[in-house]
């Protein structure tokens, strides 16, 4: 293995009218894991795209060892021993694992694909990394975590010297994260250069040897000695201001039962689920990916139909055939996957806010009330501090945090009894997170029952009055705020071995 460092020399990147990066210079030593941190929009992803050859820097250069690089395409970057593993994996779900691994250089004989050689080569690549994956399996049948491993195996197949991970753990379970950490440690020990982008503090402190912080497209500083660095120091450096308590929790009285769920069964749930949530309560649901939390919310929001069980809202029985029934009853959902289920990307911020509320403000039952919509959009943008140049801006140009606030704004003008939030702050920077927590507690103070599903332990503990833990499609425990500890929650969330 070559032992060469990676240097960024005064890199800047301009997009028409926007300066995404300016004057980024730092060095990553071989045989170390180097974290890039910063709020969304700080420039981490742009830097990785430059490293991967997808973007060309406007000024400055990359240097690997003593060689200065100027990648004109992704192919050149790959050819120079760089592998960037993006958040969205670049794999073909309908093809087999082996075909995905060897896409572009499949072994062939007389112009025909040599299937035997292909499977052998694929097995070699997966060995030690993900032995349980059969290379003949269809890629689409793998879990997200396994797909990530396939992507890593693909990077290894090119014997990459520089490997960059862009938020690799955002869709992994705890066990899969452990395995990824072990793999990263191995890559480091082999003397490769590992860049690691993540929002998760625990991971940074667990695996990284150095951290470079970005803010607003600029380099802030690099911490070399992780032992001397504290969590608070790092946050302060990223945000540029002190955050005492981003969770903004205040105890408040609960005012009687809002929603009671009894014996609920449906797709993705293995055992009947029963619980209740009070008006003014923030109820957290913790669990690993695949624990059935999202499926539970789909049942509560009318998106899936239950096989058994009952819902009681404000003392009255409730049946939900579709999302409209839930919305009419005042049960409102902010979905997990903002891009796929939350926003209409090309439509304006105003349109995205008004899409749900519109039905209650029509003339003659079908005509849109322009002035009301304009006012409503302006009101929500102001109330939620949505950062957008105008209400007419297509929402796809906003950051994740502001998109999430717009989806919240969609519901705020409507009668709300229960608010369902599925991973409300995934991929959102700390400043916007704090604002969303504040909104959640404001709603709870107004007597709304808020159900928050989250994989972020600190978040669940930080904002919830009470936490229910799910594992493998069943409720495995209830923990009150006072006794909530990370270890206890994790223990409840880990799958039991079934006999």
């Amino acid at each position, binding site marked *: 293995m070559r032992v060469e460092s990676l240097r960024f020399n005064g890199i800047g990147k301009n*997009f*028409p*009218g*926007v*300066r*995404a*990066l300016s004057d980024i210079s730092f060095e990553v030593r071989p045989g170390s894991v180097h974290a890039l941190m910063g*709020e*969304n*929009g*700080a*420039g*981490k*992803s*742009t830097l990785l795209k430059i490293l991967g050859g997808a973007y060309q820097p406007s000024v400055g250069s990359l240097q690997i060892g003593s060689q200065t690089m100027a990648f004109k395409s992704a192919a050149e970057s790959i050819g120079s021993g760089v592998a960037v593993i993006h958040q969205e994996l670049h794999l073909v779900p309908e093809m087999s694992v082996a075909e995905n691994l060897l896409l572009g250089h499949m072994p062939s004989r007389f112009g025909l694909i040599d299937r035997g050689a292909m499977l052998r080569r694929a097995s070699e690549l997966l060995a030690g990394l993900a032995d349980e994956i059969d290379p003949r399996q269809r890629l689409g049948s793998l879990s997200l975590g396994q797909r990530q491993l396939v992507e890593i195996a693909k990077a290894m197949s090119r014997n990459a010297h520089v490997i960059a991970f862009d938020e690799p753990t955002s869709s992994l379970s705890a066990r899969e994260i452990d395995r990824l950490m072990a793999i990263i440690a191995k890559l480091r020990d082999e003397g490769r250069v590992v860049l690691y982008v993540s929002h998760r503090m625990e991971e940074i402190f667990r695996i990284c040897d150095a951290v470079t912080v970005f803010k*607003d*497209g600029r380099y802030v500083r690099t911490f070399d000695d992780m032992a001397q660095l504290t969590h608070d120091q790092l946050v302060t450096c990223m945000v540029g201001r002190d955050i005492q308590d981003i969770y903004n929790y205040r105890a408040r009285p609960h005012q009687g039962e809002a929603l009671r769920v009894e014996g609920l069964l449906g797709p993705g749930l293995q055992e009947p689920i029963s619980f209740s949530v009070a008006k003014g309560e923030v109820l957290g649901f913790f669990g690993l990916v695949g624990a059935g939390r999202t499926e539970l919310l789909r049942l509560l*929001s009318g*998106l899936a139909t239950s096989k058994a069980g009952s819902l009681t809202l404000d003392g009255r029985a409730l049946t939900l055939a579709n*999302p*409209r029934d839930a*919305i009419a009853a005042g049960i409102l*959902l902010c*979905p997990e996957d903002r891009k*796929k*289920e*939350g*926003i*209409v*990307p*090309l*439509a304006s911020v105003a*349109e995205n806010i008004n*899409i*749900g509320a*519109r*039905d209650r403000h*029509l003339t003659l039952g*079908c*005509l*849109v009330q*322009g002035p009301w919509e304009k006012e409503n959009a302006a009101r929500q943008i102001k109330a939620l501090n949505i*950062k957008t*140049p*105008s209400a007419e*801006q297509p929402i796809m*140009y*906003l*950051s*994740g945090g*502001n998109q999430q606030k717009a989806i919240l704004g*969609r519901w705020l003008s409507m009668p709300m009894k229960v608010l369902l939030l599925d991973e409300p702050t995934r991929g959102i*920077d700390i400043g916007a997170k704090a604002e969303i927590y504040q909104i959640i507690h404001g709603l709870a103070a107004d007597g709304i029952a808020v159900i928050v599903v989250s994989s972020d332990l600190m978040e669940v503990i930080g904002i919830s009055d009470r936490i229910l833990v799910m594992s493998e499609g069943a409720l495995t425990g209830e923990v009150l705020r006072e006794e909530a500890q990370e270890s206890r929650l994790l223990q409840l969330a880990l799958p039991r071995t079934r006999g």
Partner: protein
Amino acid sequence: MSTQNTLPAPRQGLNLRRFLDEWVMLLAALAIFVLCTMFIDNFLSPLNMRGLGLAISTTGIAACTMLYCLASGHFDLSVGSVIACAGVIAAVVMRDTDSVLLGVGAALLMGLIVGLINGIVIAKLRINALIATLATMQIVRGLAYIFSNGKAVGVMQEDFFVFGNGQLLGVPVPILITIVCFIFFGWLLNYTTYGRNTMAIGGNQEAALLAGVHVDRTKIIIFAVHGVIGALAGVVLASRMTSGQPMIGQGFELTVISACVLGGVSLAGGIGMIRHVIAGVLILAIIENAMNLKNIDTFYQYVIRGTILLIAVIIDRLKRR
């Protein structure tokens, strides 16, 4: 892409881009029109203008509702057959009952039924629009031949000809109907839940469903309305030709879709405005008219039309980079 987000977006640049997105094709149509008046004799003559207007009318009427199909992320291949079948049914019913009202009513009803079938199959049974409307395209074409015994059915009722050959203040009725359709459907798109929901479904169906939009119902309405309007276009065409002809309108569906896409409506859904449709219909019709005046061979006309469409979609693709 997340990188550029929190920085304030370049307002000036964006507005210019949006302006171009919305108006450039209409300006192009205008420019082509001006060029034609300058370089082609007789282009501006009253007779030719009238012919141009009539050529626009059938495509224009059907394109108004094709816009909704496209904006919702679908399309409809059956409209050419619906046009033929509507003309045939109107002619046959008038021949047998001597009632213009019944004839037109029956034609529109047929359009409604075909549209409902398209909509229900696509929305409720989740069948791909390409396959669903390819099937109804052939079924309805077959029915048109069956009802007419494969021959043109002549119309005797003078009152029927008002749709195709009548005039109001010197403007032919088909052109008036087209203008009314442009205005009505343009207004509908922006000022009713039906229109806004159509755009939302095309932009992100999952999000629309979760926001409480009646997704299936809206889709069915889109296709039902499209069926009725397609039949209306068929009635107007039959009235102009004073007969219902079962073989007419083959490939018409592709002309209508081409016009919409040429004007800037996205095939992927979520983008579309009535001015896109107007621009696309105008450009196609003016170029065709100009080629006829210049006596360009029909065979070459196909090549030119295809090339224009290809260039338009390539430009569209480049715009979205």
